[in-house]
């Protein structure tokens, strides 16, 4: 068992190393790409999707995934959402299709966006509570703490699924009730949708509901950039440290703004895929918001040198450049 584990870890390390080497080669080969964070992010997303695929074939994957999602935010905020989440890659791919067919994205009104943002906590709670409600409706013989814990952690509905919903990407094989010519639907959240709708509806409807869900998320992310990120319940657990001003110190990774260099040109607000307004509105210093997925698009597009910075533990890792390339002066 332990040898198997080590073997798996070695495989993963080799895979990660090779991919990183590949990225480096591409970046050096195409020098211009090194300045374009969006391309880099795409690469990281693809790599992480491959990594997730491996994680799912791994015996203790669920535990690792959970640790990663629960520990990462303490240090990195919603970095996971912006850079690693496979569902985000899926939405970004749809965005590429939209760009190719030259359709303009729609902008959600700020109020609706904020509402969706708060709705995630409700969704999160609902998913956690449902199994208990169902248990109460059909009480088992003994209702002790162990049963309750089992319900929360595994049980027929596995509320923890909602925490890892978006990282079950299209490529992970899964055997569910819905199959089209032998290919099972392995779409983020579809398992949950099926599980929960099975309780109320007959199997025919379950499939229809799952299909409608897939269609809605597809159309939604076609017209609205990163539509799911705006109310993703997974994001709520991840972003909780970024939410409160008192926790400003907590995330190691955050966006920092230099007010004096900002001319309030509004580019950061416009280019943000989840329509975060705080980068534009806040006075300077650390930006506190739990909506930001740290995709760093704003930092990339900000045309004022040093105005926006991505800081990791107080050290600047990436900053806005004069993206028209400044000259060097003494």
């Amino acid at each position, binding site marked *: 068992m332990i040898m198997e584990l080590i073997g798996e870890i070695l495989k993963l390390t080799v895979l990660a190393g090779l991919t990183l080497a590949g990225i480096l080669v591409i970046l050096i080969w195409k020098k211009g790409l090194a300045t374009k964070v969006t391309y880099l992010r795409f690469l990281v997303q693809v790599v992480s999707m491959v990594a997730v695929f491996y994680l799912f074939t791994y015996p203790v994957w669920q535990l690792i995934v959970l640790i990663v999602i629960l520990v990462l935010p303490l240090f990195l905020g919603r970095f996971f959402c912006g850079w690693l989440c496979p569902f985000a890659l899926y939405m970004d791919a749809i965005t590429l299709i939209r760009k190719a067919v030259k359709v303009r994205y729609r902008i959600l009104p700020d109020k609706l966006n904020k509402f969706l943002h708060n709705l995630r906590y409700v969704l999160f709670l609902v998913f956690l509570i449902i199994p208990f409600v169902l248990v109460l409706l059909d009480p088992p013989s003994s209702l002790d703490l162990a049963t309750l814990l089992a319900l929360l952690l595994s049980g027929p509905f596995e509320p923890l699924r909602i925490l890892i919903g978006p990282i079950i990407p299209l490529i992970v094989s899964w055997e569910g009730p819905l199959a089209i010519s032998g290919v099972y639907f392995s779409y983020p959240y579809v398992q949950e949708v099926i599980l929960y709708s099975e309780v109320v509806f007959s199997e025919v409807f379950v499939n229809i509901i799952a299909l409608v869900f897939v269609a809605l998320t597809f159309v939604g992310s076609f017209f609205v950039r990163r539509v799911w990120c705006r109310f993703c319940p997974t994001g709520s657990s991840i972003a909780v440290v970024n939410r409160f001003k008192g926790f400003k110190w907590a995330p190691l990774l955050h966006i920092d703004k230099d007010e004096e260099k900002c001319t309030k040109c509004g580019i950061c607000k416009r*280019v943000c895929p989840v329509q975060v307004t705080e980068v534009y509105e806040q006075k300077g210093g650390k930006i506190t918001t739990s909506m930001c997925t740290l995709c760093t698009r704003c930092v990339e597009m900000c045309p004022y040198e040093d105005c926006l910075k991505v800081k990791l533990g107080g050290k600047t890792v990436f900053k806005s450049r004069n993206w028209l390339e400044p000259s060097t002066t003494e």
Partner: protein
Amino acid sequence: MKNKSEEKKYMPEISQKEIDELRKAITATSQRVVAENIEKMKKADPNRPEAMQYFDEIADFATREKEIRAAKQEGKKVIGYMCLFAPTELILAADAIPVRVNSGWYDASKLGDRVVPVEVCPVVRSTIGAKMIALSPYLELSDALISVLTCDGMTKLGEILSDYTPVWAMSIPRVKDSAQSMRLWIEEIKSVKGQIEALTGNKIKSKQLKSAIELTQKATKAFRRLQDLRKGSPVIMGRDAMLVNQTYMWDNIERWTEKTEALCDELEKRVSQKNWACPPDTPRVMVTGTPMIWPDNWKVPTLVEEANPQGVLVADELCSGERLLYDPVGVDEWSMSDMLNAIAERYLMASTCPCFTSEDGNEDRINWLLNKIKEWNIQGVIYYVVRGCMLYAMEYTRVKKVLDRMSVPVYYLDTEYTREDVGQMKTRVEAFLEMLSARIDI
């Protein structure tokens, strides 16, 4: 459209003979002033960058006038604008020529007194005067004018000029960072796009608009490169750089970019050779306030750089200077509506014109000044205001408070469109520079 030559709302009737006489006299003065200014600039820096030659030539109005005339013969349209909020990219995308038509002629401002009282800002009066006697070639060649209703003077100036040329008024919201302001301004941009299309007969397609935006982005790049070069020891005199910035207002933008890049190449070479334009310990001055427009209103930069002790202008916050091109159009996706949004935001939100206010007042301007002072290592600020420029004059108190806190000396220099106060101003500027160099010695 009604017959404009018949009915004039504002302009007085002047006989053709008088117009001709006045134009001849003022044009002669203007040519003399241009030559004199360039002569002075050459004298101030004996080894002036060679690339400046081009800008000297283009600063002479006749050269560019000939070119625009030739282009007009081929059917191109010329669209003039008064404030820099006019969307240059849209004009370029419709294959028209953008020119800025504000006037810097002192003598013309006396003529403007016949239409508006002397209390009015001289930039406005001078532009009216220039139109009266057909002095400015760019104003004369314009097929239409875009008048952005920024300050009171500009609002009425557009109305007055509509006696001669079709004027498209764009009402700009005074609070620049609210959602409703942005909606209004985008509508204005779209409407002016329609007007440009109707005048030129060219439909603005996303491909053309994209290349126009890229053109101005390249110009911004060259422009910023030049301003960045002024951060270190003075490698170029402030007046030379200001002239380069200023020529953007009427030059062919593609060529201007090329020439500015060439100038920057030369300057970079000089930086590596430590070949300075003036001693590196010369007091570094920034000027902010009312626009200074070539050729006549070159008074303050000349005084600063020829005073004893000498100062050097390394930065400015003028809408005829660094504010022209500092902000690029940042496009997220190259679709038509996004490009229009980007253009609208660049012109409205990034501007630091004092005609705006917001929750924090005109905080952006303060931030601009602070950033310049720190990055460009400014030792003193000249707050330049012409009589009648209410908005700049009123913001002085706030700017002074902020700069006092930083212990950066700021000097309020008020003047008029006149040559008569040069002697008196010289004393004032020299006293200020004396104080600055004393501070540096300490």
